[in-house]
């Protein structure tokens, strides 16, 4: 059973377009993290969201945590080729074990 469902699984868009990817669960999160992973590398933490309704911005990336803390979204404005990668959401379970979604593979075409 997948605790975290990410959608879409694959997304290919042109440079300059906007996009949103989603992370959903039937369970309430205590907190949620978003990571980006590039080929041949490990995931790199982008943000941690803790409070329901929280919005965090990281340059052109906007992260939102749902009010009920069961979903989250990542919005990218004016996507650039450097944004290409695998975007993973993860919930912290127990002490600090991370449970990841299956990821959204994003390709930005020049």
């Amino acid at each position: 059973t997948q605790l975290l469902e990410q959608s879409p699984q694959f997304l290919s868009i042109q440079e300059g377009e906007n996009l949103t990817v989603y992370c959903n669960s039937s369970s309430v999160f205590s907190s949620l993290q978003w990571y980006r992973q590039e080929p041949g590398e490990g995931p790199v933490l982008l943000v941690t969201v803790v409070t329901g309704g929280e919005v965090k911005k990281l340059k052109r990336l906007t992260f939102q945590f749902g009010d009920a803390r069961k979903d989250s979204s990542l919005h990218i404005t004016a996507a650039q080729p450097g944004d290409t990668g695998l975007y993973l959401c993860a919930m912290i379970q127990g002490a600090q074990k991370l449970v990841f979604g299956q990821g959204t593979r994003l390709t930005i075409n020049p």
Partner: protein
Amino acid sequence: GAGVSQSPRYKVAKRGQDVALRCDPISGHVSLFWYQQALGQGPEFLTYFQNEAQLDKSGLPSDRFFAERPEGSVSTLKIQRTQQEDSAVYLCASSFSGGWKTQYFGPGTRLLVL
């Protein structure tokens, strides 16, 4: 920079062989984690150490998988009698301490079992 390093980066094994994967965490990091990432999937938790103590090994898929961190720094993940379904990227991560502290991931070891 002194990030998490893993070796080897690539390993090809024949089915039935034993393999050992090494992780060098960031100096001073107390916590160390191993994850398995199958092709096209997100990482899945395998095991967790705090210093030399293995506090959670609930994610190890079978008794063929064994991890150790004898001196509380370097860790080794050993897979005995490898099988094709063990083919995956094995990621190591470390963090300064427990709780909310950020986990820093290494580049992974890509294991292919033929």
